[in-house]
């Protein structure tokens, strides 16, 4: 159990993320209105805010699952400018630096757990099947799911699927990890297993941006808290400080609503 979740080669290459004046509209609705945000290499940023505040959209702009309408996104040394045509090669290069974990896991149901983790490595890193599967087994062992390797994801619980999804992304040596409400579809006691893996990853020094409603996780694990509402960042800073003493009325209302749940 002493194998690190992230490899040494990867550790040296952990990247930061710079977002500058980012905007995105869906039809007439301005979902992101000039967002600027800086994520230091190796830091954990928690994104919170009411639903519809644009936090998921912001996250999805980092790996261009959504195409921004204005502004720039920089991951490591690669900058994407909105409005410029992104070459397929650059798009893939960006996505290969950034791992993402979804609320609904999105494992491939027709592959076994092992193939879910090995297949992307073979395609993206050009690893041999043996090498990729060996790495997959090590990582599965690491998150306590070695015995699930040959089953299909449908046979795994939600918490297991989400840990597999995390491992699938990590196997590609990402330099940044994005988490889009990773525990929202899980029962609280199951979510804990997933949060434990995320906490370990944070301790190992991965750059993480986490959209979450888990306030305890945000306070204990994240280095930086960003509160969003209606497409703006309304407040950001030290997590404990903001939670204890929000400057904005809007933040106060949101926090009390979440904590009272």
């Amino acid at each position, binding site marked *: 159990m002493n194998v690190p979740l992230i490899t040494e080669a990867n550790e040296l290459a952990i990247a930061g993320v710079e977002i500058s004046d980012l905007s995105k509209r869906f039809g007439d609705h301005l979902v992101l209105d000039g967002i600027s945000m800086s994520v230091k290499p190796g830091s954990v940023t928690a994104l919170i805010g009411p639903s519809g505040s644009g936090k998921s959209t912001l996250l999805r702009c980092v790996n261009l699952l959504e195409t921004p309408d204005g502004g720039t996104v920089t991951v490591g040394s690669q900058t994407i400018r909105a409005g410029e045509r992104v070459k*397929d090669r650059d798009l893939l290069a960006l996505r290969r630096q950034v*791992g993402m974990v*979804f609320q609904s896991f999105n494992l491939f149901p*027709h592959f076994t757990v092992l193939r879910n983790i090995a297949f992307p490595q073979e395609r993206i890193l050009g690893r041999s099947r043996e090498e990729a599967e060996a790495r997959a087994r090590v990582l599965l062992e690491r998150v306590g799911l070695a015995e699930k390797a040959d089953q299909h994801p449908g046979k795994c619980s939600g918490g297991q699927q989400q840990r597999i999804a995390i491992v699938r*992304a990590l196997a590609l040596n990402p330099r940044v990890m994005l988490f889009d409400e990773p525990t929202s579809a899980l029962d609280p006691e199951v979510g804990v297993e997933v949060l434990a893996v995320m906490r370990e990853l944070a301790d190992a020094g991965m750059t993480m941006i986490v959209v979450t409603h888990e306030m305890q996780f945000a306070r204990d694990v994240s280095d930086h808290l960003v509160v969003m509402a209606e497409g703006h960042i309304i407040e950001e800073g030290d997590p404990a400080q903001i939670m204890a003493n929000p400057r904005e009325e809007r933040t106060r209302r949101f926090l009390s609503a979440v904590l009272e749940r």
Partner: protein
Amino acid sequence: MGDALLVVLLGLPMTLLVTALAFAIGLVGGIPLMIGLRSRIRAVRLACRFVVDLIRGVPPIVWLFLLYFGVSIGAFRFDSLTAAVWGLGIISSAYLAEIYRGGFATVPRGQSEAASALGLGRTVTFGRVLAPQALRTALPSIATYLLSLLKDSSIASTIGVADMVFNATMFARQNPATAGIVPFFIAAAVYLIISVPVAVTARRLDTRLRRTH
């Protein structure tokens, strides 16, 4: 009775040939049409939608007549088998394109998003992530279509393809006093004997695939 059975059975290879070739054309031809139906470009989508609806909106027998009697380019004319195979093949393409499209529509959006986020290219995502899942849900419909195609292949008899129905018709005409509708009963039995195992196999395959899901 024995003669009728023999004559009808002599048409069986032709029935199977027309069905198999038309189905093969449909399986392949449905792919580009389906891709067109899912295109990001509106004009392509509309054009393919128009073609699919046009093909499906005209009865198969009319398409076969149009191909067989209506096409003459210089000295070129379709012989009856070619007209039947291509006519039914093109019709199958349209139906199967729609079935494929329906299969893809059931694959959750998250699947292609996850593939994109991992950095998989468009071709790999399509071929290895989306298509296998789409095919699994489409499989029962594809099998059902194959069964209806087997029966519809009898339309080829109207332009002179010597399949089971053609032979049954001929036999009935040549033996008006004795044959009655016996040859058609025989043909019906043969169609059933082929259809039922296909249907059963398809259902088995379907439940098995569902289990592994």
